[in-house]
Structure formats: structure tokens, C-alpha cells
């Protein structure tokens, strides 16, 4: 129906309309505000500078992964292999580093730079396989990256065979576990990654294409956008971010072993979605992801500070994610009448 819009809507209606449109940006922010105030009153140790530092360190590895995942979710695809690619990359970096004699892994010691290059090469190739599977063969990203999750886990298992490695290249050790002027390098890397992601999404042609492919894939195709190329690129960006997070994570944890990134898949997806980036693609961005990261970080940290059953924590996180999903879908539906009325 081609109902033409009344030009002079009452200003209250306008405000309501604006609020509806901005729901996905406002809701996560209010959630964050609420959590900060709540934990601030509930625990004396929460609202301190030290604890802020803790929260930042705690969300950094997730943050690097979530930066890459934001690209993927904006195109309305998904990457379930981020945790396993991170794990594999971290293990590759350790595998090519000289380990203490007590470590019982048949590893190959190479110079630090070579180990890093090989590690980056492995996450690049895993991302490339994802990209080709989705865009060339046409496997839905959900299934393709589910397979890649297994493959990444397989690579980890083959390399460490149930053992634990501890040493990583010196550069990785510095970036993952050292600080400069009291600020952990890890936090700086995460901040730079998220910032760079924002710049790419908001100010480059590629970033615009990412939004357009997610917003209306068919229209992007008819406008001459090479959608396969864009989707391939976001899958590779996601794998590269996961790889960097995996290497630094190994240094942050102080060990490289199987399954140590298992919880990061859920955390990264939660951060992106809780932040308000649309699961249907096209709306949201790096700013949303940053807010989402803080919501998760504050929640995890705050629940540790107050006296609460640690098993209940898991349930609470699940409920928060459910709440975010409801808002996400609801926000999508609120906007929907606009497009149907005019189409």
C-alpha cells in the first residue's frame, strides 16, 4: 500500500517514533547504567579504579573477537568458529616456540617472528576455508562455521595431544600479559582493534557495503555490490581477529591448551547482540559492541563481587542474553511497519 506519510505529525509522536527507532541503542546503555548503579550499591569493592582496570582486562580478549564478529553479524551471517579458531591460533604460536623441557610436546622451535607469522597464517587459512565454503559452495554460514569449530578443535588436539604449553613468542608475551604505564597492552590492543573496526565500518566504502549487504542483500546485489566478496571478507576479518585474540589470550592465561576458549564463542556473540547489533543484519556497529562488552564485563565482574552462588551466575547470564535477544527482535519489529507501509 502506498500510504503517503502525513508531513506534520505531532511532536510527541515524533519523539515516540525516534525512541522506537533508537531502542536498540538505548536499551543496552540503560542496562549498563542499571548494572553499574546496582553493583555500586551492592558491593563496596565494585566502583573502584582498580576494579575498572580488572573489568577492562577481563573483556579484552572477548573484545578483540567481538570486533571481528560484529562485521559478520552486520552482514546477517554468523561465525560459530571464533573460539576454536582463537584456540588453534594460540596453540600454533606456542607450538612453534621453544618450550620448557618439562613440556612433553613434539614441538618445533622457531624464532618468535616466524611463530607469529605461522599462527597468523593458520587463522587466515581457516577463515579462507570458511569464506570459500560459504560464498563459493553455498554452505549456510551457521553450518559451515559449525564444521570449522570442529576442525579448529581438531587442529588443537593434534598439536598439543592433551598436554599444556606455556611459552609464547616474546612479542606475544608482552602484548598479552605486560603493561605500559599501568595500562595492560592487552587492553590497548583491544581498544585499537575496536577503534579500527569502527573506522572501517563507519568511514570506508567497504564498511558501507557491509551494512548494505546486511540491510537488504538483494538490493545490494541489484546495485552491483559483489556480495560474495563482502561476505568472504567479513569471514576472514572475523578469523583474523579471533587469531590475534587467541595468541594474546594464551599469554594472558599463561598457558596454551585445548578447550581454553570454549566460553568465548558465547561471550563474543553475547557482546555483539547485547550491544544491540541486529541479528538480521544491517544495523548496529562497533559502538554497540563496546557497550555490549561492558554490560557483560560488569555483569561477570559484579556477580563475582557480591555473594552469590557461582552456579546461579551461569543462569543469570543466560537470562540477560535472553532479555537482549527479546529486545533485539522487538526492536526489529518496531521498525518493520515503516518498511511495509511504504513497500
Amino acid at each position: 500500500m502506498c500510504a503517503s506519510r502525513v508531513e506534520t505529525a505531532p511532536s510527541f509522536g515524533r519523539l515516540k517514533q525516534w525512541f522506537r527507532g533508537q531502542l536498540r541503542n538505548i536499551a543496552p546503555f540503560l542496562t549498563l547504567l542499571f548494572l553499574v548503579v546496582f553493583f555500586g550499591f551492592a558491593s563496596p569493592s565494585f566502583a573502584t579504579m582498580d576494579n575498572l582496570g580488572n573489568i577492562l582486562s577481563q573483556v579484552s580478549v572477548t573484545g578483540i573477537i567481538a570486533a571481528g564478529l560484529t562485521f559478520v553479524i552486520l552482514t546477517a551471517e554468523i561465525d560459530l568458529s571464533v573460539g576454536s579458531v582463537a584456540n588453534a591460533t594460540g596453540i600454533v604460536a606456542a607450538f612453534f616456540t621453544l618450550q620448557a623441557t618439562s613440556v612433553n610436546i613434539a614441538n618445533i622451535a622457531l624464532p618468535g617472528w616466524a611463530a607469529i607469522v605461522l599462527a597468523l597464517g593458520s587463522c587466515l587459512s581457516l577463515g579462507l576455508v570458511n569464506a570459500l565454503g560459504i560464498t563459493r559452495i553455498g554452505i549456510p554460514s551457521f553450518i559451515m562455521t559449525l564444521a570449522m569449530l570442529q576442525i579448529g578443535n581438531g587442529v588443537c588436539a593434534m598439536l598439543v595431544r592433551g598436554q599444556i604449553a606455556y611459552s609464547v613468542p616474546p612479542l606475544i608475551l608482552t602484548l598479552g600479559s605486560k603493561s605500559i604505564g599501568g595500562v595492560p597492552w592487552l587492553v590497548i590492543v583491544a581498544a585499537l582493534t575496536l577503534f579500527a573496526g569502527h573506522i572501517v565500518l563507519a568511514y570506508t566504502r567497504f564498511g558501507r557495503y557491509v551494512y548494505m549487504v546486511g540491510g537488504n542483500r538483494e538490493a545490494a546485489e541489484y546495485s552491483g555490490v559483489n556480495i560474495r566478496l563482502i561476505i568472504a571478507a567479513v569471514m576472514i576479518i572475523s578469523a583474523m581477529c579471533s587469531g590475534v585474540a587467541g595468541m594474546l589470550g594464551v599469554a594472558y592465561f599463561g598457558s596454551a591448551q585445548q578447550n581454553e576458549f570454549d566460553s568465548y564463542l558465547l561471550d563474543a556473540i553475547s557482546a555483539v547482540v547485547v550491544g544491540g547489533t541486529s541479528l538480521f543484519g544491517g544495523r548496529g556497529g562497533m559502538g554497540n559492541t563496546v557497550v555490549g562488552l561492558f554490560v557483560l564485563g560488569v555483569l561477570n565482574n559484579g556477580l563475582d563481587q557480591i555473594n552469590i552462588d557461582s552456579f546461579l551466575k551461569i543462569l543469570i547470564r543466560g537470562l540477560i542474553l535472553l532479555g537482549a535477544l527479546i529486545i533485539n527482535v522487538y526492536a526489529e519489529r518496531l521498525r518493520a511497519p515503516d518498511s511495509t507501509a511504504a513497500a
Partner: protein
Amino acid sequence: MVTSTSGAAPPLLELSGISKSFGGVEALRDVDFSVAAGEIHGLVGENGTGKSTLMKIIAGVHTEYRGTMRIDGTEVRFRSARDALAAGIGMVHQELSVVPDLSVAENVFLGMQPLGRLGFIDWRGLVRSARAQLRNLGLDEVDVRAPLRSLPIGMQQLVEVSRVLYSGARIIILDEPTSALSPPEIERLFDVLRRLRASGKSIIFISHFLNDVLSVSDTLTIFRNGRKIVTTKVTREIDKGWIIKRMIGIGHEELEESYTGEIQLSSRQDAPVALETEKMSFGHAYHDVSLRIRAGEVLGVYGFMGCGQLELARTLFGKLQPTGGTLRIGGQAVRLRSTAAAWRTGVAFVPESRRSMLFAHEPIYKNVSISILGRLSRLWLKPAREREIASRHVKSLSIRPTSVEVPLGSLSGGNQQKVALAKWLTHDPKVLILSEPTRGMDVGAKQDVVRIIRGLRDQGMGILVVSTEPETVLALADRVLVMKKGSIAREFANEAISKDRLLGEA
């Protein structure tokens, strides 16, 4: 032609004084319509004349209307399609509602499978009843266990008819059932319809194919502009020309010049060929289509819904891969593997559905600039430039509202279409393919779109306009091809053309 209608008995279905409007636009004005038991009633009229609206009222889809409806003399008012079905009215829509991967038998009983004890589906009973059901329609040879997709489209349609019958329908509405069928399939469908008539069922048959309507109907009703023009018994005197005259209103007080007025086509035979196809085919949709689009001309392709013109447009833009024939762009034989490849060779496409070419949540300027981003910037976006270009187009095409920051979804349909065209004003492709460029627009917006397209043509662009609306083709084209069931039936070039001639060829 034999009719079993008896003059005395009340008609099976009778509507009187039906009016219906959509948002101030009157779709039906005071229509009386009746169907007798054991009658095949043909319904013809152009697009948007109210046929479908009336059928949807009968089938309980539209529930708000003025006027009364009676079945067997009793007044009824349906609140839903379910109500209508319960009262014995079934509709087979143009878009089949079947599940291709389920078996034929399951499709016959879709949603009403016979259940055995414990509520499980009684498979043996299902197969047996499906076979009996189809045999009643004269379809003995169908393997009811085979997946429906393995059947030709005509048989699938008959399976849907049998489902509607099984649901107890006494009045069956068929919307454009023959558009995708081959002549033998049509004969088969008509056999089934005649058999149903003999068993006392009534059929309402909507079609653009006048020969089909004439060959099977007992009675015929013609619609124009939301009014019933005439209902008549189909006799020898009634032929295609007789119907077309009444469909478009020749000899009536509402004579509109655009219907009968002749338009002189003139095309430039000397201009270079921008795009050319030779014996191109795509699956069952169309075959052996050879056409040329010259620089600086608008080639119109007219045909009914489902005659293959939509697929043709998509093949030229690389969205579909042709199954045969060659495509030459600028004299070079090419194979377009993707729309991005078509883009690079200078072919652009505006699909018939606005939803599939515009970004409703994004502001106007991003919708305009998407097609030229590659030229505006390599790496960094230049939003100021984008806004400037978009503002220029918004002004020159008088798009409302004038702010380029407004999300596209809040614009009216006509303005959205203008935005979609604005993309090409800057991009400047060699060949522009437009599918239904003026569908659903008001007169003012239509004129604007015609003006824009003529402007692009005068710049030397080769333009292909594909439409099911004769007015659109006549308003725009310098040369016209008529498509009929997947191939080109007639070319009009450098001659006078009018709407009735166009309709007569299709």
C-alpha cells in the same frame, strides 16, 4: 456449448451491490454478480479492475465491504477464509500453495490428513483416498507416492484443484490457472473443469487469455474500472474482439483516449546495438528469444504475468544463468556469472519490487549513492559528495520530502521509485533494464518516471522496459515486443499501435 443452468432456481452464489474501497480508492463500485450451479463462469478485465478484489470478498479474504452475498438464497457474511471454505467456496491462487517436496498424496490432503488410531497419520488410507480422489478428476496415471515436484506444473495445479475439491468446495475460484500451462495441459485442465461442471460444481475462471476463457466458459463477465460492464452467455457471436472492446471501453461513454488512441512508434534503426540476445532460453520460463536494444531507444516488452518476461530481464542482468543462446553486450559475446559482472559490463537493473532494490532503513542519500560508491571513493567514503549528488537528484526529480537524511522507508511508493531511478542518473550504465517501472504509482508520479526514463534515453542509454501493463509499455517504448508463453509473438516497430492491438497479440 451446453449449460445446465435452469432459469428458475436461485443462483448458487449471488452478490448484489458490492462496493469496496482501499484507503479512499474505490476498487469495486456497486457490483452485482451471480454464479449458477453447474456453470463455468469466465471473468475478464485488465489488471486492477476489481476482479481479484471481488474474488477475495467471495473467498472470505476481504471481510470489510458494502453489499450482500447469498449462497443458495441465504445471506452470508464471511469473517475469514476458513468461513468461506466451510460454506463450500475454495480458491486456487495463481501462486500455487503446494509443498513440492511432499508426496502427491500428502499434497492432496494438506492440512487435513486422515488420522488413524492414536492420532497418527493413516498412510495407507491416505494413499488410497488420494488415488481415488485423483481418479475422479481423470488422473489415473499419477503416482501418488512421488514427490509433487516431479510432476509438471499443470499436474501440480490439478493436485491443488483436487485438494480444494476434497475440502468440500462447491464453488471453485481459479485465478489465472493457464498462464504457466502448455496447450495439452490446458486441455486436460478444461476436461477436469467440464467434468466438475457435470457433477454440479460451479467454477469461476479468471484469466487474461481470452481464447482460454472463450473455449471453456458458459457465461462471461467483463470488468472495467471497478465496475461490472456486462455478463453474457458465451455464444458464437462473442469473440476476442468483442471482449477487448468492452474491456477497454470502445464505444462507451467512458472512452479514454489512452486506450484506443494510436501511438506512432519510431525507432532509430541506425543507432549502435547496445545489447543483443540470440535464441536465448531459460528453463521452462522462455525460449529462443532474440532481441536487440539499441543505444538511445526504449524497447518495451509486453506480456501477461508469467509469460517469461521477468526471467528474461533477470537473465540479461546475470541474476539467472541462461540455459541456451548467446548474449552480446556492445558487440562482445559475454557470459554473466553474477550481477556484479553485469555491472562491470555496463548493465543495470531495477526490479519490479521496490522492496528488493532499496534499503528502507537507510537515508535517501545512501540509497542513491550505493551504485556509484565505487567511482566516488576507493577507500574512504565522501559523505559530503554523496549528499550533494543526492540533493541534486532530489531537487531535479522533485522527490518529497526534500531532506536526503530521511530514511527511505518513510517515503511514498512513487517517491521510492524515483529514488531507485536516481541511482542511474549518475551511474550512467550503457543498458538499463526496468521491470514494471510504474507499478502502483499515482498519475503524477508516473509522469515523472516517464520523464526521467525519456531523459536517460536521450542521453544515449539503451533501455529495456518489461511490463504487464500495456499503458506502461505504450507510454515509454519506441519499439515493442509482445511475449506470449515464453517466446516473442510479435514485434511492433515504426507503425501505429494501440492498446487493443497490443492486447490482441498477447
